[in-house]
Structure formats: C-alpha cells, structure tokens
C-alpha cells in the first residue's frame, strides 16, 4: 500500500467517524446522568438540515454549525420537557423524537433537495501541514474533526475531574440518594439532555457540511442508532467512544475501498457491515461482561425520577 492511499484511508476514516463521535459523546453524557434518549437519529437529522440551510443562505460555516447545535438542542428540549417534567417513558419518547425529527426534516427540507453548498474545508497550517506524512495526518484535518476529539476530552474532564461531573454521575447511579443530599436531579438531567441534543445536532451537520454538499431525506441513515450502540460499546467511558467510532468509521471506509479495488462483493453486503458489526460487538461485549458487575453502567439508566418530598 502506498503512502498516499494510506493517508487517504486515514482521512476517510476520520471523516466517517466524526459524526459518530459527536453524537455518541453527547449521548454518553446523557446516559451517565441516567437518561436514555433514543432520539439521537432525529436530533442528528434536524442538525443536518439546519446546518445545510444556514450554510446555503449565509455561506458562513460558523453560523451553520451553530444553527445545527441550536437545532439539536431545541428538539432535545422537547424530550427533556416530556421526560423530566411530565415524566413520560423515556424509550417511547425517544423513539417518537426520532420519528418526529425524520418527518420534520423531510418536510421542512423539501425545497433544498436540489441545492448544493460549499463544504467546510480542511485546515491548512503553513509549514506544519506540509511536513511529509505527519502534516496531512495531524495538521490538515477538518476543523470539526479536532472539535470532536476535543469534546471527548472535555466530557471526560467534566465527568471525572469536576464536582459537577461527579454529581452528574451520582445522579445516574442513584437519583434518590442524590436528591436526598440535595442535588437537583431534574436540572442536571435537563442540561445533560440539551448537551446531548447539541452534540447530535453538530454530528448531523457534519454529514451535510463536510461529507457531502447536499441535503437528502434520511441522510443520517441510521448513524444515530450506531452512536447509541457506541455508548454501550464504550462502556460509558468517553475515550472508548473514539476507539469505537474509528472501528465503525473504518468499516465504512473499507466498504468504499473494497468497491474501488474491484472486490466482487455486492455493495449491499458491504453496506450491511457497520450494522452487523454493531450487533456483533454488543453481543461479544455482553458475553465478556457476563457475571461481572460493570461499575460504569449508570444504575438509574432509563428510570423515571419521582421526587417524593
């Protein structure tokens, strides 16, 4: 394998895995607070549409990403309101959010399916980016790729190095106890859900602002579900999200290159690979953890919190 092909594959993988990293790291924080939001797919697609629309009208990538972030937050706030104040079932509400997001974006995006936009370009730092091999790999990525990695670090730092992070984890572990010592369970969860929405929104926008310059219905194509699987795969540990996302991104890229190398497998089989891999990894993880208590699983995940006093 020659050098440029290798570099292309690495860049390809980074592009394929970044949306997963964004969505999964957001969901990880949400789940650490004890909330299961199955609406990731819906929040991503809304982010993808808003990012695209704002980029199309303003041509300002900052505004576009910011709009996607706000869009994801806005739609997640519906989920947060329903589950935290009206105490609805989280699974049903999350599924509804996904269906709502998909339907809403298809409807609102009708006028944009024929349009194209200017993609957000990878950065180029003089000198550094020109270093052979290292330059393209380390200093010439898309700015959002760096942001994704930074968010993973930020979430790790928040969860394990700050008091608020400790409180959030404690709420996910035992919300009754956290409430008893005076922490505001609903407020922490509400904030976590909004953060999850924001990250899913940006992850979705990455698809329409970096991967392809077009908007299409259902363009998230199940990435939200993969992100949910990734959180479990990562055992709720932030840095493992990167590992998992690269694995899944890698399979996607492999699928593309396999086609390029004229390997005679139907494209459909290759498209199945990431999803098959999700199932296999989840199953193998379960087998590996059998008979072991996993201390990183939030004990209150998906449970409704009734304040009793």
């Amino acid at each position, binding site marked *: 394998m020659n050098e440029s092909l290798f570099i292309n594959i690495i860049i390809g993988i980074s592009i394929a895995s970044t949306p997963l990293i964004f969505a999964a790291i957001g969901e990880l924080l949400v789940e650490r607070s004890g909330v299961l939001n199955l609406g990731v797919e819906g929040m991503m697609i809304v982010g993808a549409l808003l990012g695209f629309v704002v980029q199309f009208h303003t041509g300002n990538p900052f505004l576009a990403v910011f709009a996607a972030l706000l869009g994801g937050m806005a739609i997640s706030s519906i989920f947060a309101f329903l589950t935290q104040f009206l105490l609805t079932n989280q699974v049903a509400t999350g599924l509804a959010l996904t269906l709502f997001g998909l339907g809403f974006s298809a409807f609102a995006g009708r006028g944009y399916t024929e349009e194209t936009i200017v993609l957000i370009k990878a950065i180029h730092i003089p000198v550094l980016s020109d270093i052979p091999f290292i330059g393209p790999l380390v200093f010439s990525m898309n700015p959002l790729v760096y942001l994704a990695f930074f968010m993973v670090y930020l979430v790790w730092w928040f969860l394990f190095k700050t008091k608020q992070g400790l409180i959030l984890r404690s709420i996910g572990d*035992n919300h*009754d106890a956290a409430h008893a010592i005076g922490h505001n369970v609903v407020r922490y969860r509400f904030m976590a859900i909004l953060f999850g929405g924001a990250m899913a929104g940006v992850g979705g926008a990455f698809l329409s602002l970096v991967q392809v310059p077009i908007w299409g219905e259902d363009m998230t194509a199940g990435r939200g579900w993969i992100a949910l699987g990734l959180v479990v795969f990562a055992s709720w540990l932030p840095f493992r999200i990167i590992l998992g996302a690269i694995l899944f991104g890698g399979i996607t890229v492999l699928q593309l290159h396999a086609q390029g190398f004229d390997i005679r497998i139907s494209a459909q089989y290759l498209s199945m690979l990431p999803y098959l891999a999700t199932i296999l990894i989840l199953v193998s993880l379960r087998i590996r953890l059998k008979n072991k208590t996993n201390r990183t699983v939030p004990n209150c995940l998906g449970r409704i919190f009734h304040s009793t*006093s």
Partner: protein
Amino acid sequence: MNYQLEVSNVTKSYGDLKANDNVSLNIKDSSIHALLGENGAGKSTLVKIIYGSLMPDSGEMKWGGNSYSPKNPFEARENGIAMVFQHFSLFESLTVEENIILGLDGVGLNQNFTDEILKYSKQYGLDVNPQQVVGDLSVGARQRVEIIRCLLQNPKLLIMDEPTSVLTPQEVSDLFVTLKKLANDGCSILYISHKLEEVREICSEATILRGGQLVQSCVPQDHSQKELAEMMIGKKLTELARSKINIGSEIFSINNLSEKSDDLYGVDLENINLTIRQGSIVGIAGVAGNGQDELMELLIGEKSSSDGVLKFNDRDIGSLGSHERRQLSMFFIPEERLGHGAVPDMSLDENMLLSRPESSGMTSNGVIDWISVASYSEKVINEYNVQTPSSKMLAKSLSGGNLQKFMVGRELIRNPELLIVSQPTWGVDAGSANNIHQSLISLADAGSAILIISQDLDEILSLCEQIHVLSEGRLSDSVDMKNNGLEKISQLMVGGES
C-alpha cells in the same frame, strides 16, 4: 439548660392526613436524643422538616436560640445539621472518597480528602478505605462511610435514621462508642429507632410520636422497654410465649448442601446441614451477605439443587420448583417484599392469586374467579389487621409493615406444614412485629415447623428453640443457649470458631 434545637408546634399535612400535628421536640446540647414511633407515626416527616427537605405548614424552629427555617438540605447542612440516612444515600459505583465529597458543599474534586477521611476514621474508630468502591463494602462499612461524610461537615446535630437495623452486635457496640464520643465532643445526636433496648442504653431523652402526634417526652431509663413500646403503639403488647411446645418427627432436612454462587460478589455455600422437626421454630442468625440470599434461593426453589440434598417428608424436593413445593405444603416469605414477595404494580388480590396453585378454588378452567380471590384477600386483611382501604390497592402503595402483614397472612392461611421466612419483621414497627411474631408462634403451636432466617438477633432469641448461625456460607451446629449462648452466637456471627 441550653437547647441546640427547639421545634415548637410543627404541623404538616398531606391532604386530609396530618403527618405531624402540633409536634414539639427539644434537643439539648451534647445529648443523644431518641425519636421513637411506629411506621407512619410521623418520624420521617419531622426529620425531613428539620433537615430542610420539607417545609412545615405551621410551627417554628430555633437553632442555637435563633429562628431557623431551612428551605433545602444545603441550608440545613450550612447550619451544622448532618444526617445518616437509612436507605438511598450512597452511590455504589463510586469510591468512598467520591461519595464523601458528594455530600460536602463547596468542596471540589481537586482537594485531596484522603488524609482528612483517615483522620476521622482514626479519631472515632470508623474503619474505612477511601479508595474502595462502595458497592464492594459491607453494610456496616457503608454506614461508617456515611458517618464520616457527616463528620466532615463538623455538625452540631447528627441525625441517625435507624442506624443499627443492619449491624452485627459487635458493630452496634462499636457504633455506640463512636456516638458517645461524638456527644462528648459537643455534637448532639437525634437517634431514630424502634429498638427500645438500644434507646435505653445510649439515649438520655426520648420523644415519642404516635399517629403524627406527640405522646410524651421522657427519660428512657425511667421506663421499662415494655412501657416505651406501649406508649409507641398506644395499646398493650401481647406477651410472646409458646403455649405448648410439641416437637414431632423430622419434616425437613438439608444434607451436605454446597453450592457455588453465580454472582461475582455472592457467597458460596459450604456443606450445610440442618434438620427441622414438626412444631419447632428454627432460627438462622447471621449478618446479611453471609449466604442468606443464596440459601433462600435454594430453599424456595428458584434454583434447583442436586439429588438428596433437600428432603421434605422424606421426599427429595431439590429439583422441584417453588409452585410444586407449595403444593406439598411448604410455604415461603422472602425478604424483599416488593419485587420478590409481591409484584409492586399489582393489586393485593392479584398478588394473592399469584402464589396459589390452580387447585385452590380461585380459578375454574383457567378463568379467574375474582370474587373468590377477593374473599381470600379480605380474610387475610381482617385476620392480620392489614391497614388498607381495599384489596384492590396496589402492593407498592402499602407501607412495608402492612405489606409484610399481608404476605405473612397470605402464607399462613394455607396452614403450611413448613414455613420458611426471611426477615419476618424487617422495617416493621413494634406493634406489627408483635402481631407477626404472635402468628408465627400460634402456627408452631398448632404443629407446623418454621424456619426463620433473620439478622435481628432479638427476634431469633425470643422465638426459636433451635438456633444456628450462618457465617461466610457455613452454617454452625445448633447453639446450646444454656452456656454463654449469646456470646457464642456473637462470635459465630463475626466468623469466629466457638
């Protein structure tokens, strides 16, 4: 005399129910003050008001002489009030240190608390390892963590909610040493309990509540245990006594039972032997987590055991499920009331039906006869004095004590030949516990055999003729109570040889 906390005429209602009706309570400086009452007497409500989790409808409080009305627990803690909860207060997946930091306001993660924790640990004899994950700790160790968490706030008042309900006798006496030391150092303690002998041992004053109202404040040493209990329940206690002990032939035996636990943190049972005769009450004492759950699983039939290990009336029952065992007249009351003994989200009627075999007359051709089911539930509700508006109420809506009475009744109306019961009165107040004990005794008097697995040593001592101790998965021989029996039991409970 100075009062650290004065509570005057506090009232708190929930709809029509007055949880606290004009209650007053005064706690002196550096004293250990008991708060006594049955379940539902209003103890928790009063404590929540003091700790700021609830706001009273009327009444006032003074803290160190100044007006005090906390809006939330943070405010209470700022004033120097700390609380050790009975349930729900530690985070199992976090370390001891993280748990302690969570309970402290204005402390970040960057501060290193290890030394501070160890300092208190030494000073008050509270042995803990700051880096251990709480999920791995024993109940006693968890309580020590909670106490240290409170002490780090330098409290002037420490509230303890039924602290000894899960401790070994040794742990209880260690705790009392700690509490006395704390009171000497100027920290008042509000001690909530219904264990009257403890209250008489360490508390200098007691406030007794009943039905939300203040019954009396008194010096506990001036009254006998029985008098205190009667003040709590408002009526006379029945004396517990077997009318006739009529031990018959062997009905149930466990022979060389060894079983590896499936659970990583479970206890392996090793070579357990036990014989139970008709008309006898056999007790298994021991601290929780020494194999009780594992043993109960096998006895109930949730897990099958190998041939010849469990024998009931000379029949091998190791491979039978719990339903089949019930059909042979073995009945069970597991420890966990909600989720194990009863389905929380189902009515009492439904729960009644669920533990019944098809032949009980509650169904015909597979169709449920609700009228017949209800008549059985009503019978239990009346005979066992279960406080509930109707048998249609959900199991989870009953208080723990009431549900326990229902579950005991549900099994007892079948007149079991053998009843196996785990923690019959856990979390049940004195009056109800007395009722339950009385029913168990009547059952044994009538010739049935009973096996009681309990952490409550007093319960075992007052009911059982034959006492064994379960420790680290091993069951002791029957303890001879005549020669220093109590001392022997204590030694066995902590794993010592006797």
